[in-house]
């Protein structure tokens, strides 16, 4: 009997071993995208760690710093605090300077400076009402805006918590950052949901795969890609990051050539991943595509998507095809006080740098926001009107007064103003689609393609005429245009 049982048991164990070996999940290879995603941080229950009463924001911060003494210092080195980047030599300029939200002009709400008490409701700090704000005071750092998890925290003027917020409850809820922490400011850029960014809006709080494959299917958080160290968060909009700061790249997780089809892989030298994988922006929520300040102040029928007396005329669009331009990670930028050469032409407030001959440039998808905004017809520069608050345009509908109140040493106001057409480029990196929804050949190439290849500097459609290298060779051979 034993002579039978033992061999049978051995065979059984062998078979079972093989089955188990095959059914066990093999560890992911090191180059698998999931291997690059940081493990989720287990939140710490702060309810017993933070004791009240907490009378204001700085008192919350002081409580945080008792256990996280470096946190405020770390944050104060970042643009989330300073609203200005590192001092760098900007493209096309000689001087070294730091630019950021604090001192730049855009063609949405125009300028934060003269309206800082209002704009700072999205600042990671407390008490930025005017130029007297103390950027060196650690207790002015607002930890809650990025870490509270109640959803009941709201900031008001100067970045102070609005009245009625239970600061103790909010402080005891803190944990690792979530989409909501980031989205509460970044989804509402430009003054409302989906206004400024074509690829960031409230649909990203809990998106389906239809909106974004990373968040909808893989359930990633913002910080899974924007991997943060010492409160330094990589990634920055081209509007305020003109040079190449620390950015988030698809290749941080994915291969340079991740496609099965070699022909598709051959695109990756010239075409950004985003170009194909963000075929449309503002998928769910309409985004603002144009803003004409020159029509403001009239008693016309108001509609938040077409006209408001305070703000002028708008154009919104949903599920929009981006525009495509070369981009090497840098941008030209209009700085406050820069001279306008020709007010009859559209002024580019920012513009991506790149071209077919630039080996670092790739074709990127952009939201292009077209505006018409106030400028000084004598000094020939864009103006920074005060819109919010006492004497502001939204109160008195008086451009002259608004400009006098809002003028800065860099952009003084002469008393004469007009309106100029402007344009801003916003590269897209969110609302990523899987391969099943990515651009197909016909959507770029052929008679119905969305790419204007000649405008991009090719001799024609590269599917038929050759890629930029071929184009470059031909150009060189044909007379050294290169």
């Amino acid at each position, binding site marked *: 009997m034993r002579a039978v049982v033992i061999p049978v048991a051995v065979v059984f164990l062998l078979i079972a071993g093989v089955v188990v070996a095959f059914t066990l999940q093999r560890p992911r290879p090191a180059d698998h995208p999931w291997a690059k995603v940081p493990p989720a941080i287990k939140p710490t229950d702060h309810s017993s760690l933070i004791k009240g009463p907490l009378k204001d924001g700085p008192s919350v911060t002081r409580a945080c710093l008792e256990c996280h003494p470096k946190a405020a210092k770390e944050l104060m080195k970042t643009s989330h605090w300073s609203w200005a980047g590192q001092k760098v030599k900007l493209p096309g300029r000689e001087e070294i300077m730091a630019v950021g939200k604090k001192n730049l002009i855009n063609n949405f709400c125009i300028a934060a400076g003269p309206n800082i008490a209002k704009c700072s409701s999205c600042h990671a700090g407390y008490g930025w009402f005017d130029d007297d704000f103390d950027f060196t005071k650690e207790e002015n750092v607002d930890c809650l805006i990025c870490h509270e998890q109640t959803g009941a925290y709201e900031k008001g003027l100067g970045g102070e918590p609005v009245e009625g917020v239970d600061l103790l409850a909010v402080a005891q809820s803190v944990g690792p950052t979530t989409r909501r922490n980031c989205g509460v400011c970044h989804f509402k850029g430009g003054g409302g949901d989906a206004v400024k960014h074509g690829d960031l809006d409230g649909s990203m709080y809990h998106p389906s795969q239809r909106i974004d494959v990373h968040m909808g299917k893989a359930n990633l958080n913002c910080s899974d890609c924007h991997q943060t160290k010492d409160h330094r968060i990589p990634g920055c909009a081209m509007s305020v990051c003109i040079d190449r700061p620390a950015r988030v790249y698809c290749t941080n997780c994915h291969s340079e050539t991740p496609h099965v089809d070699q022909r598709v892989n051959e695109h990756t030298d010239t075409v950004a991943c985003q170009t194909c994988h963000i075929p449309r922006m503002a998928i769910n929520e309409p985004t603002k595509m144009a803003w004409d300040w020159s029509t403001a102040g009239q008693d016309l029928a108001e509609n938040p998507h077409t006209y408001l007396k305070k703000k002028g005329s708008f154009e919104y669009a949903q599920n929009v095809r981006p525009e495509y331009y070369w981009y090497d990670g840098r941008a030209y930028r209009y700085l406050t006080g820069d001279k306008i050469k020709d007010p009859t032409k559209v002024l580019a407030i920012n513009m991506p740098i790149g071209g077919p001959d630039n080996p670092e440039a790739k074709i990127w998808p952009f939201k292009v926001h077209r505006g018409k905004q106030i400028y000084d017809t004598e000094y020939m520069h864009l103006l920074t009107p005060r819109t919010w608050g006492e004497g502001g345009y939204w109160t008195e509908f008086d451009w002259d007064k608004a400009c006098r109140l809002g003028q800065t040493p860099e952009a003084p106001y002469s008393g004469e103003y007009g309106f100029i057409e402007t344009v801003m480029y916003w590269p897209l990196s969110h609302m990523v689609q899987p391969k*099943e929804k990515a651009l*197909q*050949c*016909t959507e770029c190439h052929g*008679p119905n393609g969305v790419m204007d290849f000649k405008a991009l500097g090719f001799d*024609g*459609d590269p599917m*038929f005429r050759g890629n930029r290298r071929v184009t470059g060779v031909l150009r060189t051979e044909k007379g050294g245009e290169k």
Partner: protein
Amino acid sequence: MRWFSSLFIAAMLAMSASAQESSGLHPPIPLLDAAGGNVLDSGRPVSTMRTCNGCHDTAYIESHSFHAAMGYDERTAVGFVEGGRPWDFSPGLFGRWDPLDYRYLTPPGDERLDLGVADWVCLLGARHVGGGPARTGHAGLPLDRPGISSDGGEGPDAMVLDPETGQPRAWDWQASGTVEMNCFLCHTLRPDNEARIKELEDGRFAWSGTATLAGTGIVKRAEEGWHYDRQQFSEQGTVDAQRLGLSDPQPENCGLCHGQVQAGQEPLQLNLTLAARSTATTGRVFSGQRMSDSAANLADKQNLGRAWDVHAERLVGCTDCHFSMNNPAFYTSSMAGMGGHIDFDPRRSSVGEYLLRPSHQFAKGTTSQGTTARFLGDTMRHCNDCHRAEKSHQWLPYRESHFAALSCEACHIPHAAAPAVESVDWTVPSAKGEPTVTWRGIEGDVNDPGALITGFRPVLLPRQNADGKTRLVPCNLVTASYWVDNGSLPRPVRLPDLEKVVADGAADRETVRAGLVALGYTSPEIRVDVQPYEMHHGVVGGSWATRSCDGCHAAGSVLNQPMSLAASLPDGKAPQWVQTGTLAPAGAWTEVDGRPVFRPSTLEAGFYVLGHDGRRWIDVLGIAMLLGVLLGVTIHGGLRVRHFLARRAPATAEEKTTEGEPA
């Protein structure tokens, strides 16, 4: 002068290489009428044969075009078309009867007129580019010659069947004009096909080419004929090529006759009519648009992230495979594949010569339904001319066996995305003279945009290929039921007669039969035939193709899936195959759930499919071998055990016995 012409033509070709926009180098051209005068002066219809002949040999083009001839130059005696019906007299539209159109082009000499040539143009001209028999009829003489009413006699060149009286009457060719080969239909970017067809249907044949330009703004419909807008012409009386939209043929041009093609970004709406003939017969849609982005109500739409056709999605156009036979850029060497030492013949006609006389015989395949121009069969670019299947199918076990038994399409057209016609039944037409048509691949009425489109799985039939090997190809089967008068000259019963019988109250097949007898038909009988339509478009990429082993190698193999023929067949008649080409349908007519079906048989076709097919002798042999092996092992093992036991037996006893009892 000739060198200048060649240079100019070469430059034109170079420009057309982009193939995406109207050629900027084509010179402005005067639009000429049939007499050679400028249409601005005469106000007469544009003659493409005159206008284009300034640079291109239009007579050569027309005489080298099976699209113009439509089988005219392949005519046979009635009933002698290979694989055709007993009344066919050509393999093309001009002489091959099609139950989807029903009306029969009457050959010369027939007593009972059905379709005269003029009626043929009105009815079928929508799918004919013009020229050929639309200019010369059966006799090969200009139809608008002054004496046709006398020398054409009572024949189909001169006569048509009057829809009011049901009697033949003479057609006024002088008034209608004839249909010239319509260059604009295929060589302009935005041809107005609706306007063209309207002119044909209304019998204003000569204006059909002019009407094709309606979308350019050059011409506008007037109360009588068309009016030319002088503003669109230069002072010299010429029209800019850009305004005309001159271009080499785009897939959309081909789609005007061949089925649904869409290249734009607008959500695709399915055109489920018999007019989109290739779509209606095979369910094919040539579009690079993702199915999930279309406006069609597709089942499981959100997961259909593939294009309707992968080649369209990759910008491979019709002419990339179906090229002109003397196009020096596309023509493949006749030396290739001949087994000699030369694999490629680089010699070509000059570009100038090509553009002067571009052959309009286009490279084509050989299909059961594409019966015309067999002499061009298998000249087109096939899958293997572009793809290296052995490199992309490394995952596939027994590759050579699969490649030998299956066409590429068998796996790469696993499913027809659009519905297709299943059956057409003319035995009891409606009061409007329309047949009962059933479609497969749709739940509901094809005219209802809300009907759920499921598509259908093609039936796989064996086909002999150009290389001599038989492979399975996907097909749709279209069953046609109709009345045939089996008199001395078997012919389909004329539609006007059927309409009259129905109008007189016939409501079922018996009363229709009686009515037809009363009209003089001697022996009307119902014929049921099945036309297989091979499917070679609507191709999907590898990730959407059939890949699973058990799809074929299992009891429910797709290789033997039956295909429904119709809801029912008239009088339970067994159908017969028609126009099978090189297909050899192997299988049986049978019934599934009360519906008549055709069930293919891989065994009958000569294929033995592991996991699906069974041969009794192989089973018996296998069992016998198994039992034999078991028996052998048992005996061998038994002997070993016996020997082992014998060796382990107590030696003393054995020895005692051996020693104590001498042998």
